[in-house]
């Protein structure tokens, strides 16, 4: 139990200055969804636009021909649409919030990770890269992420989205138990 308490104590400085209730934040995101549906007809989501942008990065890797010929990017070409501008807004808003609340801080290795896997930056970066690759592949296969499926789909009571939520949390819990098991 000591380690648990310690991890909370060490975590405290970063988050202590943000005192918004998670319920208030959740209600705010719910309200934002009303606007997204009623005004823009475009539910909150991230990864569809993300894969549009990824095609830009794919050009130097697999060549412009291969990108142009790709069936997926033909169905989802790069265009500066609602989703892409929404994506640009996310870091802007988070930055404003972090600066206003005094919680902006360089983080190379997060505390939870450090406690379990040590302070190696290389190790954390490799894991983050691989985790990022897996999460995006999964998001595209499933057709959405925590925002598009989890929140926007969940609130529409979509069958696909509730399946996503259930499987995502179940797998996450399992992997987390494996990763953070007591040695």
């Amino acid at each position, binding site marked *: 139990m000591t380690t648990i308490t310690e991890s909370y104590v060490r975590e405290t400085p970063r988050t202590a200055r943000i005192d918004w209730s998670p319920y208030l934040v959740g209600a705010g995101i719910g309200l934002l969804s009303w606007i997204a549906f009623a005004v823009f007809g475009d539910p909150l989501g991230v990864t569809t636009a993300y894969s549009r942008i990824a095609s830009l990065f794919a050009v130097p890797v697999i060549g412009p021909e291969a990108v142009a010929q790709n069936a997926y990017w033909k169905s989802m070409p790069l265009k500066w649409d609602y989703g892409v501008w929404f994506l640009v807004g*996310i870091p802007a808003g988070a930055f404003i919030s972090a600066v206003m609340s005094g919680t902006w801080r360089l983080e190379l290795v997060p505390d939870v990770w450090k406690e379990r896997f040590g302070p190696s930056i290389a190790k954390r970066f490799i894991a983050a*890269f691989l985790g990022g690759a897996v999460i995006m592949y999964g998001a595209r296969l499933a057709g959405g992420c925590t925002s598009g499926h989890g929140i926007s789909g969940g609130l529409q009571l979509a069958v696909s989205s509730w399946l996503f939520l259930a499987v995502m949390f179940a797998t996450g819990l399992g992997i987390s138990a494996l990763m953070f098991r007591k040695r």
Partner: protein
Amino acid sequence: MTAMMTILGPLVMGAAFGFLLQRGKVTSCNVIENQFRLRDFTVLKVMGTAIVVGGIGVLLLVDTGNTKYYVKDANMLAVALGAALFGVGMVVYGYCPGTALGAIATGSVHALVGALGMVTGAILYALSFDWLKTHVLNVWTLGKVRLPDVTNIPDVAWFAALAIGAGLFFWWVESTEARQRRG
């Protein structure tokens, strides 16, 4: 909608979303990891409230003809496989795609490394799309269905159950957390 609105609108919406994610502490890798370790329920509090508040509002908006549903296809095998990968990726990365974008702007360098991983994942998905389309995406497809369609239980009952379930769950979480703080 004017040209200004088509850019400024989504930018402001994205910024509001990013702001809320940061205020809700879910742009912190520690908070996300500790959700899957069942030590911190912030993620579920935010998502649960967003789904209930957002869902009831969107239901009313649809019923009054102010918007329509944007349900994702229930390609059950693809969603289940994708969600499983997503759960693994989320725990290894420590972020989901949206919160990662917010985290980068709050100083998380490993989130930025993972974002490059996400680009890689998106490219790998595009490259494997043709195969997935004929082997995975077409298995057990239900279309754009909602839970009320497949169960014949009306929307109102679903949201009543969700709201009561979430309320009871959060009440239990809050009382447990209060006990831990005291003890």
